[in-house]
């Protein structure tokens, strides 16, 4: 590991990325005109530092040998964003017993899945 501290901070960033993808970010188009409605940083919501969980992430670091990388090196953290959507969807299933397969998990989608609206 060249820089474990930077690696972990990059992993945290990856979680933020995946979290924003599954909780807030959405390209909304007007159905009759095709105009993009989420056209600004205000409407297309990226998470801020305040949206991150309060708990520190528990990270396990493993050093593999990558035969295709230079001197066995391997890039890290990009893949962190990938499971976030499934993890969050599972969390909703665990908490409320409903499966939501379309993101982002806005209050509207969750309440609709729960049959409250």
């Amino acid at each position, binding site marked *: 590991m060249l820089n474990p501290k930077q690696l972990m901070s990059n992993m945290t960033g990856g979680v933020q990325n995946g979290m924003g993808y599954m*909780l*807030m970010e959405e390209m*909304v188009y*007007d*159905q*009759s*005109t095709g*105009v993009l*409605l*989420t*056209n*600004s*940083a*205000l*409407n297309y*919501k*990226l*998470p*801020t*530092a*305040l*949206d991150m969980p309060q708990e520190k992430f528990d990270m396990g670091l493993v050093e593999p040998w990558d035969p295709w990388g230079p001197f066995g090196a391997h890039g890290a953290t990009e893949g962190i964003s990938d499971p976030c959507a499934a993890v969050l969807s599972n969390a909703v299933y665990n908490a409320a017993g409903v499966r939501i397969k379309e993101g982002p998990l*806005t*209050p*509207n989608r969750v*309440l*609709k899945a729960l049959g*409250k*609206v």
Partner: protein
Amino acid sequence: MAFTLMKFDHIDAKTVAEATSALGTYKGKAKIIAGGTELIGSLRTRILPDYPSALINIKTIPNLSYIKEESGMLKIGALTTITDIAASSVVKAKWSSLADAALAVGDPQLRNMGTIAGNLCQDVRCWYYTSPRNRFLCYRKGGPLCFAVTGDNRYNAILGGAVCFAVCPSDMAIPLGALGATVVTSKKSVAILDFFKVLGNALDSDEIITEIQVPTPATGTKQTFIKNRIRKSIDFALSSVATAITIASGNVTDARIVLGGVAPVPFRAVDAENVIKGKAITAALAADAGAAAVKNAVPLSGNKYLVQITKTLVKRAVLA
């Protein structure tokens, strides 16, 4: 999508009279600028059909930024920044819900620049209304219809919507409404809830806000402000609730509950107030108040969830 600014006159007003007379001279073609946090953005995205021919800067008027307790009320100058209100020990002592709401506005940079009067006068954030280059000429802009009714209306009004379903974006107006504040302008004094109209506010084209006056809450008054939003910073309310509930010997003697983010104006939930008046607050009563608050809600196709959120927020605010 942002474009360059177009040419306009820029006037530094030295007094309130100078600012209002300049507004009169330009006959509705001038805009007031103080913090500029909203105006510059709307000029750069060119959301309005008419571009102003002048901006009148009122930051140059001295002695309009103050917070003081005087003759039993809180007086806030029009140019007081949101940061100053959030940090003020005077406000935090007796008008805590106001300080809470101030902290819920935008982000630190916006709060440093934005003023209380600007927060009350800000334009709506409906997706159709704010579409760049005036893409949708909606009813609010003088067009024939409200596009949100048939379009994506997830953030539009569930209460009190009529010709326009854009919601009042101001956070400060909600606790000010619950506390029974008065807006003092260069011409008149008007109660805060009368200041807001569905298509704008009670200001004439040559009138500016000079002061906000908030009466001291009666002894035993509990204030709360709760804002629900998708993102915890730099986001407007999906729904917000401010309450000022006076309790004497265990029973509610007076209550004011105001809802934000769900109606074109700060919406006073009189039905919810009536539910709790004269009774001791319990969890069941709070739930009843929540249900009463949204009793007359008429949600559009995509915002039924706001009814559920508002109901829960009112319950929590009454119990808090």
